[in-house]
């Protein structure tokens, strides 16, 4: 009893009514009130049992459903929901990531790494949903040019990363080739053009501001474009563009190449794109020898140190080194 704990040596329960009288607690039915209470207790117990059973059944149902759904992650084959802002499709994704129609489980982290190792994929988000469905969202790179890598042709993205042209069919025949470029491996298992900053700037300007030129160029050579950053006056750093033969007027002499300086190509493109230049070229070609090939070069006027500008010169290719300037 209570006092027994307080002083262990005193047994306060000796002779107390609690120890002497045995209580037999039961809900009898001798009186009307006890009958009523018994009935109410029965009803209450019945209701509680019913509610408990209903709750258990409900929980079991929900649990079974959830277990089924979760179990489906392991049992049913993977389904893919792909969203992309480019050209890649589920077929490519399955083949690249190695997800066959019977695959039931895959590491999401490894899948994302695998997807981002493909040059065309700039960013990949992957998460697993209910019913063993993989939700994949891709951000793809934009194609800027093409390049030959051995026997294969690759696409140069706007940030210099290379990826196979097979998945960018739409631009395969419309983009100029980059030639004389050195291909190096980049982080994440992709490839890119070594020191392509000037080239990429050049491509971006041409694609956005002078698309009419871009579509008429066959190749862009970076043979005389250094891979590092160009500092100071470097007229020798040039980008050589070869126009498409079929894009030229068959009645005029052929322009074999256009040489842009790496430092002033924007100004040179502006000169080339102006109406005066077009008229000048047509006028010049109308008088010149139509059987000869020409190249267009831009030279910096250094007469006035405070006012530099480019001048366009059309030079016969055969007379290179002794060409007559107009």
């Amino acid at each position, binding site marked *: 009893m*209570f006092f027994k*704990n*307080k*002083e*262990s*040596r*005193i*047994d*306060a329960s*000796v*002779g*107390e*009514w609690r120890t*002497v*009288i045995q*209580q*037999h*607690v*039961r*809900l*009898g039915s*001798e*009186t*009307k*009130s*006890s009958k*009523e*209470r*018994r009935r109410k*207790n029965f009803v209450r117990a019945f209701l509680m049992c019913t509610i408990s059973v209903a709750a258990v059944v409900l929980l079991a149902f929900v649990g079974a459903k959830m277990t089924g759904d979760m179990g489906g992650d392991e049992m049913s084959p993977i389904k893919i929901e792909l969203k992309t802002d480019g050209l890649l499709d589920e077929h490519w994704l399955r083949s690249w990531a190695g997800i066959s129609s019977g695959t039931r489980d895959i590491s999401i982290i490894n899948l994302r790494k695998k997807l981002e190792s493909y040059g065309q994929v700039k960013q990949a988000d992957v998460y697993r949903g209910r019913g063993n469905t993989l939700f994949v969202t891709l951000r793809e790179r934009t194609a800027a040019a093409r390049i030959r890598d051995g026997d294969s042709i690759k696409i140069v993205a706007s940030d210099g990363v290379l990826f196979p042209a097979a998945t960018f069919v739409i631009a395969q025949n419309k983009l100029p080739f980059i030639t004389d470029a050195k291909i190096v491996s980049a982080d994440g298992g992709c490839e890119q053009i070594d020191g392509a900053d000037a080239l990429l700037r050049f491509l971006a300007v041409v694609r956005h501001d002078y698309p009419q030129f871009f579509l008429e160029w066959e190749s862009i050579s970076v043979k005389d474009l250094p891979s590092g950053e160009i500092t100071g006056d470097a007229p020798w750093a040039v980008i050589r563009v070869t126009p498409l033969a079929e894009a030229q007027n068959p009645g005029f002499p052929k322009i074999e190449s256009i040489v842009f300086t790496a430092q002033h190509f924007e100004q040179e493109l502006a000169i080339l794109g102006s109406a005066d230049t077009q008229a000048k070229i047509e006028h010049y070609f109308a008088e010149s020898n139509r059987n000869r090939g020409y190249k267009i070069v831009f030279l910096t006027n250094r007469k006035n140190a405070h006012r530099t500008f480019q001048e366009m010169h059309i030079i016969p290719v055969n007379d290179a080194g002794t060409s007559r300037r107009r």
Partner: protein
Amino acid sequence: MAKENIAAIVDIGSAETKVLIVELFPRLNIIGSCVGTTRGMRKCEILDMNELKESVHAAIHDAEESAGTNVKVHCACISLSGMDLNGSQVTGLTSVKSDSSVVCADDIATARSDAYARRVPAGRTIVHRLRQTFLLDSRVAGDNPEGRIGHELAYKMWVVDSDIAYLSELIQIPNQYGMRVEEVFLSSLASASAVETGSAVDNNRLVIDIGAGTSDYILYQDGIVQKTGVIPVGGVHITNDLASALRINDADAERMKIKYGNAVLHDEDVFGEIDLDSVDGELSDFSPRVSKFKLNYVIALRVREIFELIRKDIGDGTSLSSVFVTGGTAQLPGLIDVAGEIFDSEARLVEPTCSFACKFSEPRYSTVVGMANLLFRRRMAERRYHASRSLITRIKNIFLSK
């Protein structure tokens, strides 16, 4: 076993059964109540067990209903009164063991255990052990005589015991309603708990609870219970006396007592007459009439008898600071004046002062409110005790008990 937070407080009186359904924690709160008529009991003696059970169960049932359908009560407290109760003083003795005669903790424990070891007669069981005081060589030594010097240490305790059969019968009433009896409280102790003022002026007080069948009293000296007792006379006896003396039936006698009764005789009562059929006191020509003097004379005799018996019980020489009178019959006009005259002390009609029972602030609810109060205090003490028992103390106790 975890104690229930909701309990039924059942006060089975000779005339009324009062039931409170109380919630103990976080604070004591009455959530349901019922006052029902008691049948099958007279002067705290069971005449018809089935009838008594029926009436008590009905009262508990109604109280439960008033508490709400969601409330399930499984434990109960009952009050105990009647002539089957007996109170006696028990003294535990020990000699102070140390050579220097300084009382140590061991001496105190020995004296207490000696008092606790005193047995009650066969067929009786202890209901309460009320701590009184320590005496060191017959001098009062207070609650803790440790460190004091003396040769013989005595521990005094007031023990209230009851007849086992009677208490078992009472306990089985809630038991058969599906309730376990957790506590049994002495009626007078409960009433005193409900009306205590906490003032040092009232340390030597006598609390009298005049019910229908019995009058319970409890005497405090210096704030400590000195004596408890039950007088088998109550309000019903006054009614019976009136019925016999005035030759009227019990119902009329009860009505006359409540409406016109007074325990003090006044000169004008000699000429007063009461019309038995009158509602508002007006006399009619053909109705039976009773003398007001005779009515009050009979009441006064019986009331004086009650107080005289109590005075005789507690002893004529007992000095009292105040007399608290409570219970259903205490509301009889003039009763307090008679008490003051007989006990030669300040007498007061008191009602429950507990804040949780503001709706039950009538003298007739003193016992049931006091029971709720006592139960709450006991549970609080248990909680505090269990909370204070750290792991280290428990381990220590294990070793000490070996």
